[in-house]
């Protein structure tokens, strides 16, 4: 049975209170963020159905939103997701080399997860860190001014965290 903790349910209630009465659907995006964080980093169908029940909306209203926004994962991802920006300004500063290096280092293609379930490599479009390129998102934070050495260090850091 999928269910939020009491603490998270209180958070959901608080989020709903931000919007006008009867407009609880407005809390859908923030509640989906909560659900993804809580239930393994991706949104399985039962999770989305649970979110629909919390907001008293139809499941389809959740599916159509979850599939529209790029931050919601509709299939399982690794424990750590490298989301490397590849848009113009990052490309000018060598993001292609960084992506190639990560592919080679982790022996995966873009969109794949390592066999041990640790790392997923994803290319993303502009994350608004153009002055600090090349960059990637890792969890809730940005890693900027990437070099091969920094990528090595980040991989080590993640491995250490997992142990």
């Amino acid at each position, binding site marked *: 049975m999928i269910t939020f903790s009491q603490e998270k349910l209180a958070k959901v209630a608080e989020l709903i209170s931000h919007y006008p009465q009867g407009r609880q*659907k407005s809390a859908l*995006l923030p509640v989906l963020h909560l659900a993804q964080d809580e239930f393994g980093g991706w949104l399985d169908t039962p999770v989305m159905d649970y979110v629909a029940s919390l907001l008293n909306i139809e499941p389809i209203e959740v599916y159509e939103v979850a599939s529209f926004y790029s931050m919601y994962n509709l299939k399982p991802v690794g424990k750590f997701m490298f989301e490397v920006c590849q*848009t*113009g300004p990052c*490309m000018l500063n060598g993001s292609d080399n960084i992506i190639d290096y990560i592919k080679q280092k982790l022996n995966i293609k873009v969109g794949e997860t390592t066999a041990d379930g640790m790392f997923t490599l994803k290319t993303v479009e*502009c994350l*608004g860190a153009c002055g600090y390129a090349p960059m990637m998102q890792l969890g*809730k934070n940005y890693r900027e001014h990437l070099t091969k050495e920094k990528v090595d260090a980040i991989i080590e850091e993640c491995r250490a965290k997992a142990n």
Partner: protein
Amino acid sequence: MGRKLLLEKAHVEGIRTYEVYRREGGYRSVEKALKMAPADIVEEVKKSGLRGRGGAGFPTGMKWSFIAKPEGIPRHLVCNADESEPGTFKDRYLMEFIPHLLIEGMIVSSFALGSNASYIYIRGEYAWVAEILENAIAEARQNGWLGKNIQGSGFDCEMYVHRGAGAYICGEETALIESLEGKRGNPRIKPPFPAIKGAWERPTVVNNVETLAAVVPIMNIGGEEYAKIGVGKSTGTKLISACGNINKPGIYEIDMTISVEEFIFSDEYCGGIPNGKKLKACIPGGSSVPILPQNLLLTTAKGEKRMMNYESLSDGGFATGSMMGSGGFIVLDEDQCVVRHTMTLARFYHHESCGQCSPCREGTGWMERVLKNIETGKGKMSDIDLLWDIQRKIEGNTICPLGDAAAWPIAAAIRHFRDEFEWHINNPEEAQRKNYGMAHYADPIHVPTPPVTA
């Protein structure tokens, strides 16, 4: 050094906290505003000449004056912090380093518009910035600047942060409103405009982060005084986020009286191009605006020095000019490939098209594929005209401006760098190994030397 109105205090130790922000003169504009009539605040913003800093440059005071005021229906102010235009990262900086400035500007603006519940729609990826804002809102609330009966004025205002989830299109104001309502970010057909029917069918004003922050200095120094800074209809200061091939990428607050040449080469700003390379091209206002080759960037077609303001950047229209846009300033050095860069932008717009209108949904993907072919040595000469044709058929034929935004960079790249596209097609193998370098247009142009700064 130009005058700073927004970032003057951004580096004061601890300015992120309420205590330091208040000590440095924060929230004075709210004290002043609450003693005024809301209509007078709108007048003050009109006088300031402030133009929307998100990209469109629409006069803010005028936008505010459009808001409908039907009896008994709540109104809302929504801050557009969905900053996603490639090359643009100024709002993030402002929110991250001096969050109370935005909140202060939003309280004044909420009072002026009569919004008792205002929202900051922030792009989902800026998760830590959302936390900074939430903390700042909590501090403002504890100190009586938000909540019921603010500073004894009788005005109530709540403020909430709403995180998006990764969609450039939500920077378009009606898509943003849809997203705020918990839906896909599909732009709405206008009219009705948000000022009449916006969030939850209520009158709504959507303004960019920098626009709302600028309301603070406007209140503090007065609209007339603010209008004296800058030149012509480019009043006040503008945040420019500079990136690409420059020595000092980052955020610069300019007063719109400096030249593009000074901005790129002066040590006070971008500090020139790394490794002694030449300037090839630049997109001065975020990826949607036309790219300009070096010669047209530094001087207008009339031979005047091009300046960093709304009018001068757009001088010559799209034939020989560009736009101020969002202030996302992307510099390309002589070794950059315009074809590849344009391809990444086409990929971006394809990825971000919401899919609602066929010309954009189909056209953006088509342009990406054609550009990819040219870039990887599989292009045909007819592809250039095909690209031109596709972008012409997207522009102006979609519900929202994303279609135009996707079309313009392609059009400008072909307009100014057609020889580079042709070279790619004629020399597919060579193009894989080396870059085209400076374009022919640049031959007769001298490479500018950095101006002497005092």
